[in-house]
């Protein structure tokens, strides 16, 4: 297991609901339950799930933005707890974040140069002003913002969404981290430039041996971009495996539905009618397998007990009673 650069083990996060519950008791929101996830160096791992399923919470737990209710985060196989102060800054040196919205993640009052030079200075990667200039230019070049002299002194509002996201990526790289967590890095970008940013992330993971976690709701882009895919539903992991195998032969009915919901130009006939339904409330999640109220393969056992992990070989596994007891 120690080949994981960054690993989450049995992560659980319960938030306190703002209101609700009887007699003023605030029920917990079970945002994430028993999530285990590992990132390997030079590999892109995707975490896929619909809005509100807890994937951003997993990202923040791994980034130590807030503490887990239970479970632990391991960096290079060693458990870390670093939520504040010097330990938090030291952890930041290893694990960096890319935010979803490039229009909000750059301070409108600072130039591109400032955004890139600060992390270099903080983490002591520069010796002199000339050195700083050189490294900022190199960072801009790595994220393909050329000619660098032009971009260095631009204000964020002078850049497009894609350019801003490239600056944000360069800022994360300036720290020289070993792991990068990208929380929906392209969902706020125009469709036409998404591919460019994804290619860039892929190239960076490849070249500098970064462990990259790509969080998305778009399973098609995950298939294209990631080596491994883990699927999440209502705060629990439901299936994981090598990207191509998982998308070709999904083992869990939810993954199947997710794949069918992606538009496919080659599909001529309308997709089979699927059972309607909404994602469950995380304050009062369904008993047993959380997907059972919407599942086409539902069995009596599904509402009674949470399915254990069923290994399907070649690193693939799923949490599904149908896969555990094939009929």
């Amino acid at each position, binding site marked *: 297991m120690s080949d994981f650069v960054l690993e989450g083990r049995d992560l659980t996060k319960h938030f306190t609901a703002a209101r609700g519950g009887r007699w003023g008791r605030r029920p917990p929101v079970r945002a994430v339950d028993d999530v285990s996830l590992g990132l390997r160096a030079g590999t892109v791992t995707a975490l896929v799930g619909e809005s509100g399923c807890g994937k951003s919470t997993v990202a923040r737990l791994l*980034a130590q*933005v807030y503490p887990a209710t239970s479970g632990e985060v391991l960096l290079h196989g060693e458990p870390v707890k670093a939520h504040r102060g010097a330990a938090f800054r030291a952890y930041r040196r290893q694990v960096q974040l890319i935010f979803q919205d490039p229009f909000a*993640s750059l*301070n409108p009052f*600072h130039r591109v140069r400032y955004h890139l030079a*600060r992390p270099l200075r*903080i*983490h002591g990667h520069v010796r002199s002003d000339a050195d700083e200039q050189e490294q900022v230019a190199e960072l801009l070049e790595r994220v393909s913002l050329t000619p660098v002299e032009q971009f260095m002194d631009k204000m964020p*509002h002078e850049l497009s969404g894609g350019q801003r996201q490239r600056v944000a990526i360069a800022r994360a790289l*300036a720290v020289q981290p070993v792991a990068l967590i990208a929380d929906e890095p392209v969902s706020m970008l125009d469709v036409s430039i998404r591919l460019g940013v994804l290619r860039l992330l892929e190239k960076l993971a490849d070249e500098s041996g970064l462990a990259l976690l790509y969080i998305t709701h778009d399973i098609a882009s995950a298939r294209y971009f990631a080596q491994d895919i883990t699927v999440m539903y209502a705060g629990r992991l439901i299936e994981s495996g090598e990207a191509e195998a998982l998308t070709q032969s999904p083992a869990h009915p939810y993954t199947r539905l997710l794949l069918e919901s992606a538009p496919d130009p080659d599909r001529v006939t309308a997709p089979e009618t699927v059972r309607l339904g909404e994602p469950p409330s995380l304050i009062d999640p369904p008993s047993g397998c959380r997907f059972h109220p919407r599942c086409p393969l539902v069995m009596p056992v599904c509402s009674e007990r949470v399915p254990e992990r069923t290994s399907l070989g070649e690193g693939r596994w799923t949490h599904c009673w149908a896969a555990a007891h094939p009929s």
Partner: protein
Amino acid sequence: MKIKAGVAILAFFTLMAIAGPLLIGADPAATSNDGLQGPSSAHWLGTTQTGQDILVQIVYGARVSMGVGVLSAVIATLLAVAVGLVGGYFGGAIDETFSVLTNIFLVLPSLPLIIVLAGYLPQRGVASVAVVIAVTGWAWGARVLRAQTLSVRRRDFVEAARASGERPLRIIFFEILPVLLPVIATSFLATVVGAILAEAGLSFLGLADLSTVSWGSMLYFAQNGQALLIGAWWWFIPPGLCIALIGTGLALVNFGIDEIANPRLRTIKVRKARA
């Protein structure tokens, strides 16, 4: 338009305060034998009971009134920024302490407190009056800034700065402060108005340094000399009008800033909006 009119008024008074005394060169306290004369070619705004020239006094008074106003607004704004931003950013016990402190100063009746404090001052110089006014007037700004900080600190770029390893004080003063500059400017200008009025009030009550000429102390002596009863309008109208005008100018600039900083109030087309 508002901001232009306001800036014009302020520029006029600032110029008067800085360059006026040099141009006139007379002593504002110098008495003469032409007491209580109306406006004439010799004394454009007339004279006081003891024959002091009103115009000279107005010009010198601008220095003191505006000096006290700006100095105490600077002190009050520094206090408000420190308390509001630091409390709002850190939250928890620090925020609680600062909030309680702010609330105490908010509910203190400031004029009586200023009077009491000014009464006990060892020497009633311009600077000490400014400090007294600042100490009683910073809380409002601190409260506004704390509320704004609470909203800004949750924005992505603050999270991102924290993620790159920035230290809290650096985040407060380099990431959050620039975003709050319009609010700080607004509260600064409002505090200047408040401080000028407070200084005038103190002087009028005879609690400031009466040996220095300010608009307030002119009103005090006008009142003492029963200017209203004897119909010497030129004695009390100019200082009163100056105070009113400078208040109007500052308020106009404030509205103007608000219109630029708050898009919902924007009526004029701003050619190049900054982010």
